[in-house]
């Protein structure tokens, strides 16, 4: 199983942005969704997750909102801002370039 430190530098931001791109999600759910979506390969530790969320918020890419969850608890929900969408597109493009490049090296045709 991959540890968070094994995540390629900068990809955590992309994972977070992608996870909250559809609807507002709180921190716990972000970690869970990344875990589930990656078939338990990517496990995001709260030690990395929360500082990352706060950093992205300070950058103006995501915004937060305090409201109740379905279970009635109060949680902080994160969603993308307009600048965040642009940033996600940029990071996505970068990631695709990088992964294509890596696979070209690793699996030469």
């Amino acid at each position: 199983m991959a540890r968070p430190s094994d995540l390629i530098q900068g990809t955590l931001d992309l994972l977070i942005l992608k996870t909250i791109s559809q609807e507002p999600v709180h921190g716990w759910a972000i970690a869970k969704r990344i875990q589930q979506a990656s078939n338990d390969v990517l496990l995001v530790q709260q030690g990395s997750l929360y500082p990352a969320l706060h950093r992205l918020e300070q950058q103006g890419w995501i915004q937060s909102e305090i409201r109740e969850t379905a279970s009635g608890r109060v949680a902080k929900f994160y969603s993308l801002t307009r600048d965040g969408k642009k940033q996600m597109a940029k990071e996505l493009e970068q990631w695709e370039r990088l992964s294509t490049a890596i696979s070209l090296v690793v699996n030469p045709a």
Partner: protein
Amino acid sequence: MLWLKRLHLRIRSVVQRAALERDLDQELRFHLAEQRAEYVSRGMTDSEAELAARRAFGNAAVLAEQCRDQRRTGWLDDLASDARFAIRTLTRSPGFTWAAVATLALGIGANIAFFSAAYGVLFRPLPYPEPDRLVEVDLGFGGVGPTTALRDLSGLVEYAGYQPEVEATAQLGGEAVRLQAANVTWNLAKVLGVKPVLGRWFKAAEESAGQHRVAVVSNRMWRERFGADPQVLSRRILLNGEPYEIVGVMPASFGFPAHDTEAWTPIRIDPLNRGYMWGNLNLWPIGRLKPSVTLMSGEAELRGVVERIRPMFPWRMPDVWGRSSRLMHHSDALVKDSRPKLLALAAASMLLLVIACGNVANLLLTHWLRRDREFALREALGAGRGRLVRQVVTENAILASLGGIAGAAAGWILINALPALLGEVPRLQDIAIAPRVVLLAGVAVITTFAILSVVPLIRSRLLHGRVDSSGRDNVLRQSTRLSLALAGLQLAMATALLIGAGLMGRTLWQLANVDSGIRTSKVTTGTVSVGPSRCGTSDRCWAFLQDLNATLAATPGVRSVNWSNGIPLTRQTSAMSVDIEDHPKEPGAPAFVLWHATATPGYFSTLGIPLRSGRFFSDGDTRASMPVAIISESTAKRFWPNETPIGKTIRPVSGKVGRIIVGVVSDVKHYALDGFPSWIDGVQYVPFEQALPARSSNVTQLSVFVEAAETQVSALQGAIRRRFPDVVVSDLKSIEKVRDDSVSNRRSMAWLLSFLAALGLLLGVVGVHGVLTQRAAQRTREIGIRMALGASAGDIAATVLREAFLVAIAGSAVGVIVAAGLSRFLRALLFGIAESDVVSYIAGPAILILTALLAAAAPAYRASSVDPARTLRSE
């Protein structure tokens, strides 16, 4: 606008700190709760789940701190706590803080004021388009030259002319007021490049006599007297009794030739009169270089034009006339007389700033020495060196800022007081806090701050490894040696200031001992400007003056009333080129130039000017009788050293009839206490009545001398106003006040320099006192040992005094060198003493050394009264 949003987020991080903390706490607790719920759902008990969740979560405090770090506002918190601590420290030692801030404020304030004055007057561009193309003409002698001829004959420079400082009597409603008016050529506005804000400027045709009279008024006059009425253009104004139609209003920024000029009228010349060109010799020229003309090419043309003008004079002009004509930039010529004064004051204020900085540096040194223990403690408790240095820097920055703010305030006050303090300096009125001044203040503060920070940094180097070294004495010795050097520097600057003040003080003293030649204290003088309506012909004018005489004589206490064409000691020239009997000149050689004063018969006795030989003027010397003259004693000695001048003739170069000398009177300093201009060869007096022009279309300025038991200016003014509502007598003051005012320029300089020197001396001496006190305190143990070994109290006191003496000597030596370098700024202001005046150069250092020794007396006494037994036991 992502950056704007980020800025907003940063600000929120600072402002809404509490809300953010609450959110963060809630967020992390929610995570923990979800984790526990998950564990419970996997079948753990509540307490097991709680523990497991906490284990998985790790250190919540560290995580929260990591999240906080993302806000990137930590440095702000540190800064805030440093600043809070610094302010607490500064308020805990208010004496130190006040002393430091006040000292800095003095230094910075004086610098802001004097440097902005120097900039504003000497270097600020004039408020005209392309001001560097404006030029003035120096024909190489006292007169101003035939300006309209220059204008007509020059191709490369456009010349205009103006009559400076003409007082006029204006009537708008009932009452007459006195104002500054200027008689100018029609093209003055074009040459200066200004346009009226309302109406128009003059037309060329309006210079011709006979046209109806027009005037342009200042913005201030328009606002204050006409209520900014746009209908002003159809109004009329009475100037010297003549009606003028107002045709324009100038912009508020326009103040030429003087900042308080209120009205401009075109010169009046008679084109039918062939000699008209010579009728306006009193017009001062100002020119604008045409495009691509340089000062050099303009000057070359000027010399050619002067060659062509010389033979056009109706009388033979000297061949050298105008040969050395020069063009000067108007900006330089305007401030020529103020330049040395302003530069000297700026230099002096810089010396004061050096003293102030030295003083504060010493205060700081002492201050930080006292805080040794605090720093040692903080170092021992784990404060990093960087953190300590940051603390020092923050504290100094706050101190320097306080000093800067206080200095800016002091500077602002001083700037506003400058016009009153400095006297006659052009362009001083409109000096304001300009961006450059703010910049200057900033530079001053930063410089100060740098100097202040250097001290503790030197200290921290000196103190390196201090904690383990048992002997503190060596380190302390070194830093007080630095203090002593700083004190010496202060004393050096104070010496230079003292010498400067001494030079000016001696100049004043010399001037006070000059015999003006006038011996009276009961005379009041004043100036009356009369227009052609009253003085158009000599008969009318004379009748008017008789009437005025009677009115003044009827005022209680008045003994006599006399008239002249000028008031002595006011630096207003009145001269005449003459041929003198027994002293023939080759045709083309320069004529003699005599000072030309007119006088009524009682003039000499009223002013206490004794007769040396011959007679005074009498009532019999009228226009109908023979033209006569009186000359001064030194004029008589110069031209007729071995015979009597009585009966000899003096003939004006421009006239045919000579005047017979009938008397010789003792010398009077008519121009100024420091003598006549160099081109004046002698002094002649002419009967007032004989000198009245037969016909005049211009304003005549007359000076009145009223002898009275008591001077009652308001009574005189009231008497004139009741009899002649349209006549205003201006500048009524006693003859002593005239003398006083004539040295006001130098007096203000002497006072300002003395003030700066006194401040410098005070600061310097306080500094020396502080350093010596501290050194003595440190050496208590050493002194105790020496006394135990047999040194007397006198020996110990002598040690302290010797130190003070040596520092003062060294400081004085440096100060003398600095003063010698800077005193050239004062050269133009000195009178009766050399720039290297021995008295000043000895008195300045002597005062300094004596004061330094006095300042050392207290620490010397304290050191000598150390009780060796107690000192040694306490160790």
